[in-house]
């Protein structure tokens, strides 16, 4: 009987670790990373994973082992103890140090991604001069690029639904706006998520390092159509980006005849 229950408890760490090891093979791991800070975030995830994984294995195996060992029919009385001050000190101090280490290890990356003081200041796009405004509304993403005047909110703005085109290897800053409720900007491949608050303009930056097409997901419940609220992040080379912008502009100011609409 106790063999069976011990096995059950033991299977938790064994299968638990096994699924994490095999997850990548089952395509159950991170999607590819394409942003400049994504690797750091993945690294921090791994760091925590190894630390908690170690604790997980040790505690779960100890649990199974104790259950196995002390559920045997042994003669005489068990140990009589109310605890050990020394042990308590040890297992308070060691986790405390480890946890503080984890906390302080995070700070640099967090500051890099989210602090406005760390936003790109040198490049073409800055907090004051974003590449675009991304408008969220139930249940749509719309991108508003500045027109020739480089300023958003004027009559020559270009608007495009669904698809957000950005240049590769460039620090991109954009503004998040919402028309109605709270939405959230999430691109899994960028490891980037930021809620869109109505009434606020929230600047966000990233630097995509690989061309491609990535899903833009709404990550905050925004109503019945939350699952429909998808968008597309298209990362292209600078030359292609200029071309795409020219195309968007041509389409915006076209007389509709060429495209038939």
């Amino acid at each position, binding site marked *: 009987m106790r063999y069976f229950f011990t096995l059950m408890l033991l299977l938790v760490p064994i299968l638990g670790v096994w699924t994490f090891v095999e997850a990548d093979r089952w395509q159950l791991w991170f999607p590819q990373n394409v942003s400049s800070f994504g690797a750091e975030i993945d690294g921090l995830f791994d760091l925590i994973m190894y630390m908690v994984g170690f604790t997980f294995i040790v505690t779960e195996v100890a649990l199974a082992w104790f259950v196995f060992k002390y559920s045997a029919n042994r003669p005489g009385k068990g140990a009589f103890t*109310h*605890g050990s001050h020394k*042990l308590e000190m040890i297992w308070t101090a060691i986790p405390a140090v480890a946890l503080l280490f984890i906390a302080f290890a995070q700070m640099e990356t967090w500051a890099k991604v*989210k602090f406005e003081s760390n936003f790109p200041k040198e490049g073409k796009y800055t907090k004051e001069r974003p590449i675009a405004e991304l408008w969220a509304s139930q249940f749509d993403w719309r991108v508003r690029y500045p027109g020739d005047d480089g300023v958003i909110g004027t009559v020559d703005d270009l608007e495009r639904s669904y698809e957000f085109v950005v240049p590769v290897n460039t620090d991109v800053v954009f503004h998040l706006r919402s028309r*109605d409720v709270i939405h959230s900007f999430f691109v899994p491949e960028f490891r980037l998520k930021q809620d869109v608050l109505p009434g606020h303009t929230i600047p966000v930056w990233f630097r995509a390092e690989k061309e491609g097409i990535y899903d833009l997901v709404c990550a905050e419940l925004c109503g019945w159509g939350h699952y429909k609220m998808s968008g597309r992040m298209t990362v292209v080379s600078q030359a292609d980006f200029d071309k795409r912008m020219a195309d968007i502009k041509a389409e915006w100011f076209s007389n509709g005849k060429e495209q038939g609409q």
Partner: protein
Amino acid sequence: MSQATTHAANSPHLEPGEGEAGTVREHHDHHELGFLRKWIFSVDHKVIGMQFLFSGLVFLALGGLMAMAIRYQLAWPWRPMPGLAWMFPATGGAISPEFYTMLFTMHGTIMIFFVMIPLLTGAFGNFLIPLMIGAPDMAFPRLNMFGYWAMVPAFFFILLGFFVEGGHAAGGWTSYPPLSTIEAAAPGSLTGQTCWLLGLTWVGVSSMMGAVNYVTTIVKMRAPGLTMMRLPLTIWSLMITSLLQLFALPVLTAASILQLLDRTLNTGFFTPTNLQVNNITPDSFLYGADSVGAAAGGQPLLWQHLFWFYSHPAVYILVLPAMGFTSDILAVHARKSVFGYKPMVYSLCAIAGLGFIVWGHHMFTSGMNPALGMTFMVSTVMIALPSAIKVFNWLGTLWGGRIHLRTPMLFACAFVSMFIIGGLSGIWMAATPVDIYIHDTYIVVAHFHYVVFAGSLFAIFAAVYHWFPKMFGRVMNETVGKIHFVGSFIFTNMTFYMMHQVGVAGLMRRTADPYAYDVYQHLQPINEFITISAFCMFAWQIFFVVNFFHSMFWGKRVGRNPWNAASLEWDAPSPPGHGNFDRPLEVYRGAYEFNSPEVAEDFIPQTRKL
């Protein structure tokens, strides 16, 4: 009374007259009460505990069914849903997306506010506190009765919401405005949200009454000799939980009243200006003035702060009593003193204290000032420390014991095993940069289900098996109990463990149909796996239901102390009569004196004078 004395005779370890040295306790007259006064409008803490227990179990089944519907949709989106298909003839039986949002909103709401909190504090708090501290009843028995009866309007409103136009609240159990405050924003925000808010407010009233009562009872009504540091950890955990409720609940109640005002009187606490929700614009004089909040200028983040200021402590309300039960049950069935009693108490206090300054970790990506994220990260990471201490102490409790693998013990061990998983995965969420990615993904779902379902609910199962003899004078069937445990443990892990990996793959929660996203489409097979496991787990609970009701009437009768436990409740008859104890009590030691070399038996009851 005569029944009680027979039981006393059955107990081998309690010689009559044992407690004579103590003060004579107030004697309760027994006069026959009518059915209504005895079972419905009872002021007896045990009956009120039962009322909480049974209503909690009914809502548990309801919330579980909703979870099954959610899982069905996630595995086979837009396929006709068994049992619900009749509601959607137009779509050929597939549920509508707003129905799905309602399902997960109400699953969360019901499980937290109508199952876990009432079961942990309402049912076991009520039942155990007077018994474990040697009191005849609660300090305020009538307040206690009102505590349960305040739940009745809550039940009414929360059930009413399902039948109003637009269905029940559908803004998630967190109810973030403006989605929840603006009627046009979601079908569930029409009337359902108002029902939701009223229901929650009444739950809050009930919990407040309970909390005041618990704290007063524990502080003022302990048996002679029962100092605070001799209290069983269950009582400590319930007291800390009550303090959490006392300090945090007013904030939620205030917040939900503010939201109610936003919804009914068009105030604008949480609604910013210039919204166009569902094409209703505030600056249109026709619809604007009285539909979107005339004053407006509000701040949606304010709700998040107020809500999480309560709801993060609420998470500890959901798990602290479970920790207390586990500590007691592990000690009794391992025949071992709780390892490090004082550190256990201090860590409970530390969790409660830190619990008030960590709420911001739910808001790392919300648009809150990122500098605040830093401080909240440090406090959140540090709250893992007392939890770790508790885990180590539980392991220490097992070490060197004489473990009897009875059903409650198995559930308690499973609690430890799965709480480790839930606790450790929380560290990812606390780490701000990692949380940017995993916020609102299935890792979060896995994390809180490991804590609240696999943790707290397993502790509740353990507690039901453990204290069932005290409640009904009969034990639950061991074999069926073990069968229940084996299936539940396996299927629970199969259901929730793989959610970690799905979350790492980036799958969002609360999406009715994620597979149209390119990045998620390969996750359907694993979601089918999870769903089938969840169905099996749900079906497996039939063993519990059968065992529970069968044992209630036909289970094996036992005496006062079937587990040979040392704490006070086992001094009372099983089931205890009105006034609980049939002998005066005096307490001489802590609740965990097992395997002491001083006596021949392997335990010393708290009341025995050596």
